[in-house]
Protein backbone atom coordinates (compact mmCIF):
# COMPACT_ATOMS: atom_id res chain seq x y z
CA UNK A 1 0.00 0.00 0.00
CA UNK A 2 3.02 2.20 0.41
CA UNK A 3 3.00 2.99 -3.28
CA UNK A 4 -0.36 4.83 -3.27
CA UNK A 5 -0.78 8.44 -2.24
CA UNK A 6 -1.12 9.55 1.39
CA UNK A 7 -4.50 11.24 1.79
CA UNK A 8 -4.62 12.01 5.51
CA UNK A 9 -1.67 12.37 7.77
CA UNK A 10 -1.58 13.37 11.42
CA UNK A 11 1.63 14.20 13.19
CA UNK A 12 2.10 14.24 16.95
CA UNK A 13 -1.52 15.06 17.52
CA UNK A 14 -2.45 15.83 21.13
CA UNK A 15 -5.48 17.34 22.75
CA UNK A 16 -6.28 18.21 26.31
CA UNK A 17 -9.62 19.12 27.89
CA UNK A 18 -9.08 21.10 31.09
CA UNK A 19 -6.47 18.78 32.47
CA UNK A 20 -7.67 15.62 30.85
CA UNK A 21 -5.33 14.28 28.19
CA UNK A 22 -7.73 12.86 25.62
CA UNK A 23 -5.20 12.15 22.88
CA UNK A 24 -1.43 11.96 23.08
CA UNK A 25 1.12 12.10 20.25
CA UNK A 26 -0.81 10.27 17.62
CA UNK A 27 0.91 9.70 14.28
CA UNK A 28 -1.05 8.12 11.53
CA UNK A 29 -1.28 7.91 7.75
CA UNK A 30 -4.29 6.98 5.67
CA UNK A 31 -3.73 6.14 2.01
CA UNK A 32 -6.02 6.95 -0.84
CA UNK A 33 -8.59 4.27 -1.57
CA UNK A 34 -8.03 2.55 1.74
CA UNK A 35 -10.66 1.24 4.14
CA UNK A 36 -9.29 1.69 7.61
CA UNK A 37 -11.01 0.41 10.72
CA UNK A 38 -10.23 2.00 14.06
CA UNK A 39 -11.03 0.00 17.14
CA UNK A 40 -10.43 0.46 20.81
CA UNK A 41 -12.25 0.38 24.12
CA UNK A 42 -14.51 3.17 25.33
CA UNK A 43 -12.72 6.41 26.08
CA UNK A 44 -9.73 5.42 23.95
CA UNK A 45 -9.92 8.65 21.98
CA UNK A 46 -11.46 7.35 18.76
CA UNK A 47 -14.25 9.89 18.57
CA UNK A 48 -11.93 12.66 19.72
CA UNK A 49 -9.67 11.76 16.83
CA UNK A 50 -12.62 12.12 14.43
CA UNK A 51 -13.54 15.42 15.99
CA UNK A 52 -10.04 16.72 15.38
CA UNK A 53 -9.92 15.62 11.77
CA UNK A 54 -13.32 17.13 10.96
CA UNK A 55 -12.64 20.40 12.73
CA UNK A 56 -15.07 19.99 15.61
CA UNK A 57 -12.29 20.47 18.13
CA UNK A 58 -8.88 22.04 17.70
CA UNK A 59 -5.78 20.15 18.88
CA UNK A 60 -3.50 21.48 21.61
CA UNK A 61 -0.49 20.25 19.67
CA UNK A 62 0.35 18.55 16.40
CA UNK A 63 -0.77 18.97 12.82
CA UNK A 64 -3.23 17.42 10.44
CA UNK A 65 -2.55 17.27 6.72
CA UNK A 66 -5.13 16.33 4.18
CA UNK A 67 -4.37 15.88 0.53
CA UNK A 68 -1.18 17.85 0.99
CA UNK A 69 -2.82 20.82 2.76
CA UNK A 70 -2.63 21.72 6.43
CA UNK A 71 -6.17 21.62 7.82
CA UNK A 72 -5.25 21.80 11.50
CA UNK A 73 -7.23 24.86 12.49
CA UNK A 74 -9.78 25.06 9.71
CA UNK A 75 -13.49 25.34 10.54
CA UNK A 76 -15.76 22.34 10.27
CA UNK A 77 -17.68 23.73 7.32
CA UNK A 78 -14.50 24.54 5.40
CA UNK A 79 -13.10 21.06 5.96
CA UNK A 80 -16.34 19.57 4.72
CA UNK A 81 -16.78 21.86 1.73
CA UNK A 82 -13.28 22.65 0.49
CA UNK A 83 -11.32 19.58 1.55
CA UNK A 84 -14.24 17.19 1.21
CA UNK A 85 -14.20 15.12 4.32
CA UNK A 86 -17.61 13.65 5.09
CA UNK A 87 -18.53 12.36 8.49
CA UNK A 88 -21.25 10.15 9.87
CA UNK A 89 -21.75 10.67 13.55
CA UNK A 90 -22.09 8.19 16.33
CA UNK A 91 -25.80 7.50 16.62
CA UNK A 92 -27.84 8.81 13.72
CA UNK A 93 -27.47 12.56 13.47
CA UNK A 94 -29.92 13.66 10.79
CA UNK A 95 -32.48 16.43 10.30
CA UNK A 96 -35.43 14.91 12.11
CA UNK A 97 -38.38 16.96 10.98
CA UNK A 98 -37.47 16.95 7.33
CA UNK A 99 -38.23 14.29 4.76
CA UNK A 100 -35.69 11.67 3.80
CA UNK A 101 -35.39 13.20 0.37
CA UNK A 102 -34.79 16.66 1.77
CA UNK A 103 -32.08 15.25 4.00
CA UNK A 104 -30.25 13.81 1.05
CA UNK A 105 -30.77 16.92 -1.06
CA UNK A 106 -29.29 19.12 1.63
CA UNK A 107 -26.24 16.91 1.76
CA UNK A 108 -25.68 16.78 -1.99
CA UNK A 109 -22.43 18.50 -2.81
CA UNK A 110 -21.80 21.74 -4.59
CA UNK A 111 -24.41 24.22 -3.38
CA UNK A 112 -23.31 25.01 0.13
CA UNK A 113 -22.76 28.73 -0.39
CA UNK A 114 -25.54 31.12 0.49
CA UNK A 115 -25.91 32.72 -2.92
CA UNK A 116 -25.60 29.54 -4.90
CA UNK A 117 -28.29 28.01 -2.78
CA UNK A 118 -30.67 30.92 -3.29
CA UNK A 119 -30.49 30.67 -7.04
CA UNK A 120 -30.27 26.91 -7.09
CA UNK A 121 -32.68 25.10 -9.42
CA UNK A 122 -32.95 21.34 -9.45
CA UNK A 123 -31.46 19.90 -12.63
CA UNK A 124 -32.29 16.44 -13.96
CA UNK A 125 -28.79 15.30 -13.12
CA UNK A 126 -29.27 16.48 -9.56
CA UNK A 127 -32.59 14.68 -9.22
CA UNK A 128 -31.11 11.54 -10.69
CA UNK A 129 -28.19 11.62 -8.29
CA UNK A 130 -30.48 12.04 -5.29
CA UNK A 131 -32.69 9.18 -6.44
CA UNK A 132 -29.67 6.97 -7.02
CA UNK A 133 -28.41 7.55 -3.50
CA UNK A 134 -31.88 6.92 -2.10
CA UNK A 135 -31.92 3.57 -3.87
CA UNK A 136 -28.44 2.66 -2.71
CA UNK A 137 -29.44 3.12 0.91
CA UNK A 138 -32.74 1.34 0.25
CA UNK A 139 -34.85 4.28 1.31
CA UNK A 140 -36.32 5.26 -2.04
CA UNK A 141 -39.80 4.15 -1.02
CA UNK A 142 -39.48 6.09 2.17
CA UNK A 143 -38.34 9.32 0.54
CA UNK A 144 -41.39 11.34 1.63
CA UNK A 145 -41.24 10.17 5.23
CA UNK A 146 -39.98 12.41 7.98
CA UNK A 147 -36.57 11.25 9.12
CA UNK A 148 -37.84 10.93 12.67
CA UNK A 149 -40.41 8.34 11.58
CA UNK A 150 -37.79 5.91 10.27
CA UNK A 151 -36.45 2.97 12.23
CA UNK A 152 -33.11 3.32 13.93
CA UNK A 153 -31.30 1.31 11.30
CA UNK A 154 -32.91 3.25 8.48
CA UNK A 155 -31.77 6.50 10.08
CA UNK A 156 -28.23 5.15 10.20
CA UNK A 157 -28.44 4.37 6.50
CA UNK A 158 -29.87 7.75 5.80
CA UNK A 159 -26.90 9.38 7.39
CA UNK A 160 -24.52 7.12 5.47
CA UNK A 161 -26.40 8.17 2.34
CA UNK A 162 -25.99 11.81 3.25
CA UNK A 163 -22.26 11.32 3.60
CA UNK A 164 -22.14 9.71 0.14
CA UNK A 165 -24.14 12.60 -1.27
CA UNK A 166 -21.41 14.95 -0.17
CA UNK A 167 -19.15 13.02 -2.52
CA UNK A 168 -16.22 13.33 -0.14
CA UNK A 169 -12.67 12.24 -0.73
CA UNK A 170 -12.54 10.84 2.77
CA UNK A 171 -15.51 9.25 4.52
CA UNK A 172 -15.48 8.88 8.25
CA UNK A 173 -18.06 6.52 9.70
CA UNK A 174 -18.41 6.61 13.45
CA UNK A 175 -20.07 3.37 14.61
CA UNK A 176 -22.29 2.96 11.56
CA UNK A 177 -23.93 -0.23 12.85
CA UNK A 178 -24.71 0.82 16.41
CA UNK A 179 -28.18 -0.36 17.36
CA UNK A 180 -28.75 -2.34 14.17
CA UNK A 181 -30.06 -5.86 13.92
CA UNK A 182 -27.65 -8.51 12.70
CA UNK A 183 -29.27 -8.48 9.27
CA UNK A 184 -29.08 -4.71 9.00
CA UNK A 185 -25.47 -4.78 10.15
CA UNK A 186 -24.62 -7.22 7.40
CA UNK A 187 -26.39 -5.07 4.79
CA UNK A 188 -24.45 -2.06 6.01
CA UNK A 189 -21.23 -3.96 5.70
CA UNK A 190 -22.03 -4.80 2.10
CA UNK A 191 -22.85 -1.16 1.39
CA UNK A 192 -19.50 -0.09 2.73
CA UNK A 193 -17.61 -2.76 0.85
CA UNK A 194 -19.25 -1.62 -2.36
CA UNK A 195 -17.86 1.86 -1.78
CA UNK A 196 -14.36 0.73 -1.04
CA UNK A 197 -12.02 1.64 -3.81
CA UNK A 198 -14.05 4.61 -5.02
CA UNK A 199 -13.65 6.38 -1.70
CA UNK A 200 -11.22 6.43 1.15
CA UNK A 201 -13.04 5.30 4.28
CA UNK A 202 -12.32 5.35 7.99
CA UNK A 203 -14.67 3.28 10.13
CA UNK A 204 -14.80 3.32 13.89
CA UNK A 205 -16.50 0.22 15.19
CA UNK A 206 -17.05 -1.97 18.21
CA UNK A 207 -18.85 -4.89 16.62
CA UNK A 208 -16.08 -7.39 15.92
CA UNK A 209 -18.22 -9.43 13.51
CA UNK A 210 -18.68 -6.34 11.45
CA UNK A 211 -15.01 -5.50 11.69
CA UNK A 212 -14.15 -8.96 10.39
CA UNK A 213 -16.61 -8.48 7.57
CA UNK A 214 -15.08 -5.28 6.23
CA UNK A 215 -11.65 -4.75 7.73
CA UNK A 216 -8.27 -5.30 6.19
CA UNK A 217 -6.09 -2.81 7.95
CA UNK A 218 -6.80 -1.94 11.58
CA UNK A 219 -5.63 0.74 14.01
CA UNK A 220 -6.07 0.21 17.73
CA UNK A 221 -6.40 3.10 20.20
CA UNK A 222 -6.09 2.89 23.94
CA UNK A 223 -5.95 5.63 26.55
CA UNK A 224 -5.54 8.31 23.93
CA UNK A 225 -2.56 6.59 22.35
CA UNK A 226 -2.07 4.59 19.22
CA UNK A 227 -1.57 1.06 20.49
CA UNK A 228 -1.14 -1.00 17.38
CA UNK A 229 -1.57 -0.86 13.64
CA UNK A 230 -1.59 -3.53 10.97
CA UNK A 231 -3.65 -6.07 9.07
CA UNK A 232 -6.50 -7.50 11.10
CA UNK A 233 -5.03 -10.97 11.59
CA UNK A 234 -1.76 -9.52 12.81
CA UNK A 235 -3.38 -7.13 15.23
CA UNK A 236 -5.59 -9.85 16.64
CA UNK A 237 -2.48 -11.72 17.67
CA UNK A 238 -0.83 -8.71 19.27
CA UNK A 239 -0.53 -9.50 23.00
CA UNK A 240 -0.99 -5.88 24.04
CA UNK A 241 -4.24 -5.66 22.14
CA UNK A 242 -5.43 -8.92 23.59
CA UNK A 243 -4.60 -7.60 27.06
CA UNK A 244 -6.66 -4.48 26.49
CA UNK A 245 -9.63 -6.37 25.18
CA UNK A 246 -9.41 -9.04 27.82
CA UNK A 247 -9.36 -6.38 30.49
CA UNK A 248 -12.40 -4.86 28.86
CA UNK A 249 -14.31 -8.11 29.23
Amino acid at each position, binding site marked *: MADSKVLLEVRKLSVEFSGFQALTDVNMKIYEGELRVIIGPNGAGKTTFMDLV*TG*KTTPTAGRIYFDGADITKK*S*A*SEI*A*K*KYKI*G*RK*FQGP*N*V*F*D*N*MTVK*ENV*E*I*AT*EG*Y*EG*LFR*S*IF*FRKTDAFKERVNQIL*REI*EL*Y*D*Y*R*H*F*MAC*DLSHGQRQWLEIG*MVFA*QNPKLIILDEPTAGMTAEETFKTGEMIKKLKGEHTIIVVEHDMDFVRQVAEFVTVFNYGRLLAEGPLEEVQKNPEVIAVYLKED
Partner: protein
Amino acid sequence: MRERLKKIPVNKYIDLALFLFLVTFPLYQKTYWIYVMSGIMAYMIFALSLDLLWGYTGLMSMGHSVLFGAGGYMVGISCAYLSEASWIKYDRLPWFLTPLSSEIGAFIMALVVPGIIALFIGLFMFSGKIRGVFFSLITLALAGIAELFVINQSTYTHGDSGITITSRTVLSNSADKRMTDFGFYFVVFAFLLAAYLLCVLLMKSRTGKVLKAVRENESRLQFLGYKPASFKLFIFVVSGMMAGLSGVLFVRVQGSINYTAIGINLATLVLVWVAVGGRGNLTGAMVGTILLQVAETILNSTFSNISADFAQYWKLALGVIILIIVFFIPKGFVGTLVEAEQRRKDRNRKERILRKGGVNGNG
Protein backbone atom coordinates in the same frame (compact mmCIF):
# COMPACT_ATOMS: atom_id res chain seq x y z
CA MET B 1 -54.20 17.07 -12.88
CA ARG B 2 -55.77 15.09 -10.06
CA GLU B 3 -52.34 13.82 -9.13
CA ARG B 4 -50.97 17.31 -8.93
CA LEU B 5 -53.87 18.51 -6.83
CA LYS B 6 -53.31 15.63 -4.47
CA LYS B 7 -49.73 16.62 -4.01
CA ILE B 8 -50.54 20.12 -2.84
CA PRO B 9 -50.49 20.14 0.95
CA VAL B 10 -53.61 21.12 2.85
CA ASN B 11 -52.28 24.43 4.10
CA LYS B 12 -52.01 25.76 0.55
CA TYR B 13 -55.77 25.30 0.22
CA ILE B 14 -56.28 27.29 3.37
CA ASP B 15 -54.01 29.98 1.97
CA LEU B 16 -56.12 30.11 -1.15
CA ALA B 17 -59.31 30.36 0.88
CA LEU B 18 -57.77 33.04 3.03
CA PHE B 19 -56.70 35.18 0.11
CA LEU B 20 -60.04 34.74 -1.65
CA PHE B 21 -61.72 35.82 1.54
CA LEU B 22 -59.44 38.80 2.00
CA VAL B 23 -59.81 40.05 -1.55
CA THR B 24 -63.61 39.98 -1.43
CA PHE B 25 -63.83 41.17 2.14
CA PRO B 26 -64.09 44.94 1.55
CA LEU B 27 -66.83 44.48 -1.04
CA TYR B 28 -69.45 43.75 1.57
CA GLN B 29 -67.99 45.29 4.70
CA LYS B 30 -68.22 48.70 6.26
CA THR B 31 -65.36 51.17 6.54
CA TYR B 32 -64.58 50.23 10.10
CA TRP B 33 -63.93 46.60 9.29
CA ILE B 34 -61.97 47.52 6.20
CA TYR B 35 -59.76 49.66 8.39
CA VAL B 36 -59.42 46.93 11.01
CA MET B 37 -58.65 44.27 8.43
CA SER B 38 -56.01 46.47 6.76
CA GLY B 39 -54.24 46.67 10.10
CA ILE B 40 -54.55 42.93 10.57
CA MET B 41 -53.08 42.31 7.13
CA ALA B 42 -50.10 44.47 8.01
CA TYR B 43 -49.73 42.39 11.16
CA MET B 44 -49.95 39.25 9.02
CA ILE B 45 -46.86 40.34 7.10
CA PHE B 46 -45.19 40.86 10.45
CA ALA B 47 -46.21 37.38 11.58
CA LEU B 48 -44.91 35.92 8.32
CA SER B 49 -41.57 37.59 8.88
CA LEU B 50 -41.37 36.06 12.34
CA ASP B 51 -42.38 32.68 10.98
CA LEU B 52 -39.39 32.73 8.62
CA LEU B 53 -37.19 33.26 11.63
CA TRP B 54 -38.85 31.21 14.31
CA GLY B 55 -40.86 28.60 12.44
CA TYR B 56 -38.34 27.77 9.75
CA THR B 57 -34.97 28.63 11.20
CA GLY B 58 -35.72 28.02 14.86
CA LEU B 59 -34.56 31.43 16.03
CA MET B 60 -37.15 32.52 18.56
CA SER B 61 -36.79 36.27 18.46
CA MET B 62 -38.60 37.82 21.38
CA GLY B 63 -37.82 41.30 20.17
CA HIS B 64 -38.99 41.23 16.59
CA SER B 65 -41.00 44.37 17.21
CA VAL B 66 -37.73 46.31 17.20
CA LEU B 67 -37.57 45.82 13.44
CA PHE B 68 -41.29 46.46 12.98
CA GLY B 69 -41.02 49.66 14.96
CA ALA B 70 -37.84 50.75 13.22
CA GLY B 71 -39.64 50.63 9.88
CA GLY B 72 -42.63 52.44 11.28
CA TYR B 73 -40.57 55.13 12.91
CA MET B 74 -38.68 55.86 9.69
CA VAL B 75 -41.97 56.75 8.04
CA GLY B 76 -43.15 58.54 11.14
CA ILE B 77 -40.07 60.75 11.39
CA SER B 78 -40.20 61.48 7.69
CA CYS B 79 -43.88 62.45 7.86
CA ALA B 80 -43.35 64.67 10.86
CA TYR B 81 -40.41 66.36 9.18
CA LEU B 82 -42.11 66.92 5.83
CA SER B 83 -45.38 68.09 7.29
CA GLU B 84 -43.51 70.31 9.77
CA ALA B 85 -45.27 68.97 12.83
CA SER B 86 -45.62 71.55 15.58
CA TRP B 87 -43.43 69.71 18.06
CA ILE B 88 -40.40 69.68 15.80
CA LYS B 89 -37.60 71.78 17.22
CA TYR B 90 -34.71 70.67 15.01
CA ASP B 91 -33.82 72.41 11.77
CA ARG B 92 -32.71 69.43 9.85
CA LEU B 93 -32.38 65.71 10.15
CA PRO B 94 -29.05 64.21 11.20
CA TRP B 95 -26.92 62.97 8.30
CA PHE B 96 -27.87 59.34 8.66
CA LEU B 97 -31.54 60.20 8.43
CA THR B 98 -31.31 62.60 5.49
CA PRO B 99 -32.98 60.16 3.07
CA LEU B 100 -36.11 60.71 5.13
CA SER B 101 -36.51 64.15 3.64
CA SER B 102 -37.96 62.61 0.50
CA GLU B 103 -41.02 60.42 0.30
CA ILE B 104 -39.42 57.59 -1.63
CA GLY B 105 -36.32 57.85 0.53
CA ALA B 106 -38.47 57.27 3.58
CA PHE B 107 -39.92 54.10 2.15
CA ILE B 108 -36.51 52.77 1.19
CA MET B 109 -35.10 53.68 4.59
CA ALA B 110 -38.01 51.89 6.24
CA LEU B 111 -36.83 48.69 4.59
CA VAL B 112 -33.11 49.31 4.78
CA VAL B 113 -32.84 50.45 8.39
CA PRO B 114 -34.51 47.37 9.89
CA GLY B 115 -32.34 45.34 7.53
CA ILE B 116 -29.22 47.04 8.83
CA ILE B 117 -30.32 46.65 12.44
CA ALA B 118 -30.97 42.97 11.81
CA LEU B 119 -27.59 42.70 10.10
CA PHE B 120 -25.80 44.15 13.10
CA ILE B 121 -27.71 42.15 15.67
CA GLY B 122 -27.22 39.07 13.54
CA LEU B 123 -23.50 39.59 12.95
CA PHE B 124 -23.10 40.18 16.61
CA MET B 125 -25.05 37.18 17.81
CA PHE B 126 -24.36 34.57 15.18
CA SER B 127 -20.63 35.12 15.06
CA GLY B 128 -20.53 34.41 18.78
CA LYS B 129 -21.92 31.36 20.42
CA ILE B 130 -25.20 33.05 21.29
CA ARG B 131 -27.98 30.69 20.43
CA GLY B 132 -31.10 29.08 21.76
CA VAL B 133 -32.58 30.67 24.77
CA PHE B 134 -29.92 33.34 25.03
CA PHE B 135 -30.84 34.62 21.60
CA SER B 136 -34.41 34.96 22.85
CA LEU B 137 -33.44 36.68 26.07
CA ILE B 138 -31.14 39.15 24.38
CA THR B 139 -33.69 40.05 21.74
CA LEU B 140 -36.23 40.48 24.53
CA ALA B 141 -33.87 42.89 26.26
CA LEU B 142 -33.32 44.72 22.98
CA ALA B 143 -37.05 45.31 22.71
CA GLY B 144 -36.99 46.74 26.21
CA ILE B 145 -34.08 49.00 25.32
CA ALA B 146 -35.68 50.10 22.07
CA GLU B 147 -38.78 51.19 23.95
CA LEU B 148 -36.70 53.31 26.33
CA PHE B 149 -34.64 54.60 23.46
CA VAL B 150 -37.48 55.98 21.35
CA ILE B 151 -39.07 57.61 24.38
CA ASN B 152 -35.74 59.15 25.24
CA GLN B 153 -34.95 60.42 21.73
CA SER B 154 -37.94 62.72 21.83
CA THR B 155 -36.34 65.28 19.50
CA TYR B 156 -37.05 62.99 16.58
CA THR B 157 -39.55 60.51 17.91
CA HIS B 158 -41.72 62.87 19.94
CA GLY B 159 -41.16 60.79 23.04
CA ASP B 160 -44.06 58.90 24.52
CA SER B 161 -46.59 60.82 22.45
CA GLY B 162 -45.38 59.16 19.32
CA ILE B 163 -45.89 60.54 15.86
CA THR B 164 -49.23 61.05 14.19
CA ILE B 165 -49.40 60.60 10.46
CA THR B 166 -52.06 62.03 8.23
CA SER B 167 -51.45 60.31 4.94
CA ARG B 168 -52.69 56.90 3.95
CA THR B 169 -50.57 56.00 0.98
CA VAL B 170 -47.37 54.04 0.90
CA LEU B 171 -45.23 56.73 -0.59
CA SER B 172 -46.82 60.09 0.00
CA ASN B 173 -46.50 61.91 3.27
CA SER B 174 -48.99 64.65 2.60
CA ALA B 175 -52.52 64.69 3.94
CA ASP B 176 -54.00 65.88 0.62
CA LYS B 177 -53.11 62.67 -1.16
CA ARG B 178 -54.74 60.51 1.48
CA MET B 179 -56.39 57.38 0.09
CA THR B 180 -59.69 56.06 1.32
CA ASP B 181 -59.71 53.11 3.72
CA PHE B 182 -61.14 51.07 0.85
CA GLY B 183 -58.37 51.94 -1.56
CA PHE B 184 -55.58 51.49 0.90
CA TYR B 185 -56.93 48.10 1.87
CA PHE B 186 -55.95 46.78 -1.53
CA VAL B 187 -52.50 48.32 -1.30
CA VAL B 188 -51.90 46.42 1.92
CA PHE B 189 -53.43 43.32 0.38
CA ALA B 190 -51.06 43.52 -2.57
CA PHE B 191 -48.08 43.80 -0.24
CA LEU B 192 -49.33 40.86 1.81
CA LEU B 193 -49.71 38.73 -1.29
CA ALA B 194 -46.26 39.72 -2.51
CA ALA B 195 -44.71 39.02 0.88
CA TYR B 196 -46.47 35.67 1.03
CA LEU B 197 -45.30 34.66 -2.43
CA LEU B 198 -41.77 35.72 -1.59
CA CYS B 199 -41.86 33.56 1.52
CA VAL B 200 -43.23 30.59 -0.40
CA LEU B 201 -40.57 30.86 -3.07
CA LEU B 202 -37.80 31.34 -0.56
CA MET B 203 -38.88 28.42 1.56
CA LYS B 204 -39.34 26.12 -1.41
CA SER B 205 -35.82 26.91 -2.57
CA ARG B 206 -32.75 25.12 -1.38
CA THR B 207 -32.09 28.00 1.00
CA GLY B 208 -35.38 27.26 2.70
CA LYS B 209 -34.37 23.65 3.13
CA VAL B 210 -31.03 24.67 4.58
CA LEU B 211 -32.78 26.99 7.02
CA LYS B 212 -35.00 24.14 8.15
CA ALA B 213 -31.86 22.09 8.60
CA VAL B 214 -30.43 24.89 10.75
CA ARG B 215 -33.49 24.57 12.96
CA GLU B 216 -33.25 20.81 13.12
CA ASN B 217 -29.57 20.34 13.70
CA GLU B 218 -27.28 23.28 13.31
CA SER B 219 -24.04 21.56 14.21
CA ARG B 220 -24.64 18.66 11.82
CA LEU B 221 -25.03 21.14 9.00
CA GLN B 222 -21.50 22.39 9.43
CA PHE B 223 -20.17 18.95 8.65
CA LEU B 224 -22.01 19.05 5.36
CA GLY B 225 -20.00 22.08 4.41
CA TYR B 226 -22.48 24.83 5.21
CA LYS B 227 -21.86 27.92 7.28
CA PRO B 228 -25.06 28.14 9.34
CA ALA B 229 -24.18 31.62 10.57
CA SER B 230 -24.39 33.14 7.09
CA PHE B 231 -27.75 31.51 6.44
CA LYS B 232 -29.09 32.71 9.75
CA LEU B 233 -27.83 36.18 9.04
CA PHE B 234 -29.45 36.15 5.60
CA ILE B 235 -32.85 35.12 6.89
CA PHE B 236 -32.64 37.53 9.79
CA VAL B 237 -32.03 40.41 7.40
CA VAL B 238 -34.81 39.31 5.04
CA SER B 239 -37.16 38.85 7.95
CA GLY B 240 -36.10 42.23 9.36
CA MET B 241 -36.87 43.99 6.10
CA MET B 242 -40.24 42.32 5.93
CA ALA B 243 -40.96 43.34 9.49
CA GLY B 244 -39.96 46.88 8.52
CA LEU B 245 -42.38 46.77 5.60
CA SER B 246 -45.18 45.60 7.85
CA GLY B 247 -44.32 48.40 10.24
CA VAL B 248 -44.67 50.95 7.44
CA LEU B 249 -48.00 49.58 6.33
CA PHE B 250 -49.33 49.35 9.85
CA VAL B 251 -48.35 52.91 10.66
CA ARG B 252 -49.96 54.11 7.43
CA VAL B 253 -53.17 52.25 8.26
CA GLN B 254 -53.23 53.24 11.89
CA GLY B 255 -52.14 56.81 11.33
CA SER B 256 -49.82 56.89 14.30
CA ILE B 257 -46.81 55.24 15.83
CA ASN B 258 -45.51 55.27 19.35
CA TYR B 259 -43.24 53.29 21.61
CA THR B 260 -45.64 50.35 21.93
CA ALA B 261 -44.97 49.49 18.30
CA ILE B 262 -41.34 48.82 19.15
CA GLY B 263 -41.66 47.32 22.60
CA ILE B 264 -41.97 44.03 24.40
CA ASN B 265 -45.76 43.89 24.22
CA LEU B 266 -46.01 43.62 20.46
CA ALA B 267 -42.97 41.36 20.37
CA THR B 268 -44.64 38.81 22.59
CA LEU B 269 -48.04 39.23 20.96
CA VAL B 270 -46.68 38.25 17.56
CA LEU B 271 -45.15 35.13 19.08
CA VAL B 272 -48.59 34.19 20.35
CA TRP B 273 -50.17 34.68 16.92
CA VAL B 274 -47.61 32.45 15.28
CA ALA B 275 -47.84 29.86 18.04
CA VAL B 276 -51.63 29.69 17.83
CA GLY B 277 -51.66 29.31 14.07
CA GLY B 278 -48.73 26.97 13.98
CA ARG B 279 -45.19 27.74 13.04
CA GLY B 280 -43.14 26.67 10.11
CA ASN B 281 -45.80 26.63 7.39
CA LEU B 282 -46.58 30.33 6.68
CA THR B 283 -50.31 29.63 6.73
CA GLY B 284 -50.27 29.25 10.49
CA ALA B 285 -48.75 32.65 11.02
CA MET B 286 -51.43 34.32 8.90
CA VAL B 287 -54.32 32.31 10.30
CA GLY B 288 -53.19 32.83 13.89
CA THR B 289 -52.96 36.57 13.40
CA ILE B 290 -56.33 36.92 11.74
CA LEU B 291 -58.09 34.63 14.22
CA LEU B 292 -56.81 36.31 17.35
CA GLN B 293 -57.06 39.85 16.09
CA VAL B 294 -60.56 39.43 14.66
CA ALA B 295 -61.66 37.68 17.85
CA GLU B 296 -60.27 40.46 19.96
CA THR B 297 -61.91 43.16 17.88
CA ILE B 298 -65.30 41.46 17.81
CA LEU B 299 -65.27 40.63 21.49
CA ASN B 300 -64.07 44.09 22.29
CA SER B 301 -66.88 45.85 20.49
CA THR B 302 -69.45 43.39 21.81
CA PHE B 303 -68.44 43.29 25.44
CA SER B 304 -66.97 46.68 26.16
CA ASN B 305 -70.51 47.95 26.68
CA ILE B 306 -71.29 45.23 29.16
CA SER B 307 -68.10 45.31 31.14
CA ALA B 308 -65.61 48.12 31.11
CA ASP B 309 -62.98 45.69 32.33
CA PHE B 310 -63.30 43.66 29.19
CA ALA B 311 -59.74 44.20 27.99
CA GLN B 312 -58.48 42.61 31.18
CA TYR B 313 -60.60 39.53 30.72
CA TRP B 314 -59.41 39.26 27.15
CA LYS B 315 -55.79 39.21 28.27
CA LEU B 316 -56.68 36.63 30.87
CA ALA B 317 -58.35 34.57 28.19
CA LEU B 318 -55.30 34.99 25.97
CA GLY B 319 -53.15 33.49 28.71
CA VAL B 320 -55.47 30.49 28.88
CA ILE B 321 -55.46 30.20 25.09
CA ILE B 322 -51.67 30.06 25.05
CA LEU B 323 -51.67 27.33 27.67
CA ILE B 324 -54.29 25.33 25.79
CA ILE B 325 -52.28 25.67 22.61
CA VAL B 326 -48.96 24.57 24.08
CA PHE B 327 -50.66 21.70 25.90
CA PHE B 328 -53.04 20.26 23.39
CA ILE B 329 -52.10 21.57 19.98
CA PRO B 330 -48.43 22.51 20.30
CA LYS B 331 -48.14 22.65 16.53
CA GLY B 332 -50.90 25.22 16.30
CA PHE B 333 -54.16 24.90 14.37
CA VAL B 334 -52.70 24.74 10.90
CA GLY B 335 -49.63 22.82 11.99
CA THR B 336 -51.84 20.07 13.40
CA LEU B 337 -53.82 19.84 10.17
CA VAL B 338 -50.67 19.63 8.11
CA GLU B 339 -49.27 16.98 10.36
CA ALA B 340 -52.47 14.93 10.26
CA GLU B 341 -52.27 14.99 6.49
CA GLN B 342 -48.64 13.92 6.54
CA ARG B 343 -49.53 11.04 8.88
CA ARG B 344 -52.31 9.88 6.60
CA LYS B 345 -50.05 10.00 3.58
CA ASP B 346 -47.37 8.12 5.47
CA ARG B 347 -49.85 5.40 6.32
CA ASN B 348 -50.87 5.03 2.71
CA ARG B 349 -47.28 4.87 1.61
CA LYS B 350 -46.45 2.26 4.21
CA GLU B 351 -49.34 0.13 2.99
CA ARG B 352 -48.09 0.46 -0.56
CA ILE B 353 -44.59 -0.56 0.46
CA LEU B 354 -45.93 -3.57 2.33
CA ARG B 355 -48.08 -4.58 -0.64
CA LYS B 356 -44.99 -4.63 -2.76
CA GLY B 357 -43.59 -7.06 -0.24
CA GLY B 358 -40.60 -5.01 0.67
CA VAL B 359 -39.24 -5.23 -2.89
CA ASN B 360 -37.21 -2.18 -3.59
CA GLY B 361 -39.33 -0.50 -6.22
CA ASN B 362 -38.78 2.56 -8.29
CA GLY B 363 -41.77 4.47 -7.06
